[in-house]
């Protein structure tokens, strides 16, 4: 009991100091430094309507590359941990067969979910949304399939290949930036096109599509590992 009280006191001190720090930077005040630069010449430099996409992919593209590798590492880590974990077949889960409506309904809805997800990451640079959001929607589409058909498994070979190819496109497009024009990684060498048109903002849509596939396949991979009640090793 004393532990709880002491730690609540410590935590309240931390919260108090944090608030004290942020008093100097009030909530609504315009604290933009670098942000103003991005807002003013986003259209000129990247041609993307959605400034957030421009910042995530173009100005701070390396962060997103790092972020994608983090997700890749997490997927690899999870598949390591779940490798041969449920090898003992005798402990098979009692198979829960969802009723008829879920099985039929999921077969109908799944393509629409894929369509909606791909819409989001294709239009990443125009409307809010992008690779991450579209990819996770696709992953939840796969999830629906797991609920409907608990026995079947996603073909992990194809998932791994899409994952790898998407990552490769991202890195290759970035590396091309080094050899052309301004000798810097992720340089936007494609034509910018006109604002709010689908083929605008240079390589951003291509990168976001790659990220969309990658995030989608990775989260699907993670869920597949997690959900696998039956044999997990072997053919992966």
């Amino acid at each position, binding site marked *: 009991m004393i*532990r*709880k009280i002491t*730690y*609540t006191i410590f*935590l*309240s001190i*931390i*919260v108090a100091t*944090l*608030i004290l720090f*942020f008093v100097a*930077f*009030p*909530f*609504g*005040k*315009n*604290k*933009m430094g*670098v*942000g*103003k630069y*991005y*807002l*003013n010449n*986003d*259209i000129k430099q990247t041609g993307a*309507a*959605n*400034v*957030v996409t*421009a*910042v*995530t992919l173009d100005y*701070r593209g390396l*962060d*997103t590359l*790092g*972020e994608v590798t*983090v*997700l890749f*590492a*997490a*997927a690899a*880590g*999870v598949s390591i*941990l*779940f490798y041969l*974990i449920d090898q003992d077949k005798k402990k098979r889960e009692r198979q829960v067969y969802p009723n008829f409506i879920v099985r039929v309904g999921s077969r109908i809805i799944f393509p629409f979910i894929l369509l909606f997800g791909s819409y989001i990451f294709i239009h990443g640079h125009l*409307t*809010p949304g*992008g690779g*991450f959001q579209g990819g996770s929607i696709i992953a939840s589409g796969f999830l629906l399939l797991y609920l409907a058909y608990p026995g079947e498994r996603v073909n992990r070979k194809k998932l791994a290949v899409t994952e790898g190819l998407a990552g490769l496109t991202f890195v290759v497009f970035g590396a091309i930036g080094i050899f052309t024009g301004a000798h810097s990684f992720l340089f936007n060498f494609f034509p910018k096109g006109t*604002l*709010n048109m689908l083929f605008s903002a240079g390589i951003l849509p291509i990168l976001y599509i790659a990220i969309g596939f990658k*995030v989608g396949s990775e989260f699907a991979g*993670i869920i597949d*590992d*997690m959900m696998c009640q039956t044999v997990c090793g072997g053919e992966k």
Partner: protein
Amino acid sequence: MIFYVGAFILIAVGLYAIIIKKNLVKIIIGLDLISSGTNLLIVSIGYVKGGTAPIFSHPGILPQMMVDPVPQALTLTAIVIGASELALAAAFVAILYKHYGTLDIRKVRGLKW
């Protein structure tokens, strides 16, 4: 100002959960609370009173009226990093349960000194 306070309290509750709670799942929930709190903090730093979303959906929108896009870009990355960290933590908990047969952190003390 309430956004900041809310974010800090979320972080504090997350830390509290990790330190006090004995159950492994509660510890992961604590982790998740800390990363959600941080995400809320990051975005609320970028808010400008009366600003609009930073998207040039139609020509009439002026850059001066927009909210700061940079924190939103950072939060995008932070959310996905938090989610992947969490997935790995969940995998560890599942395996720990398989080895130790319990979710109580006090029993998971094979290594010391």
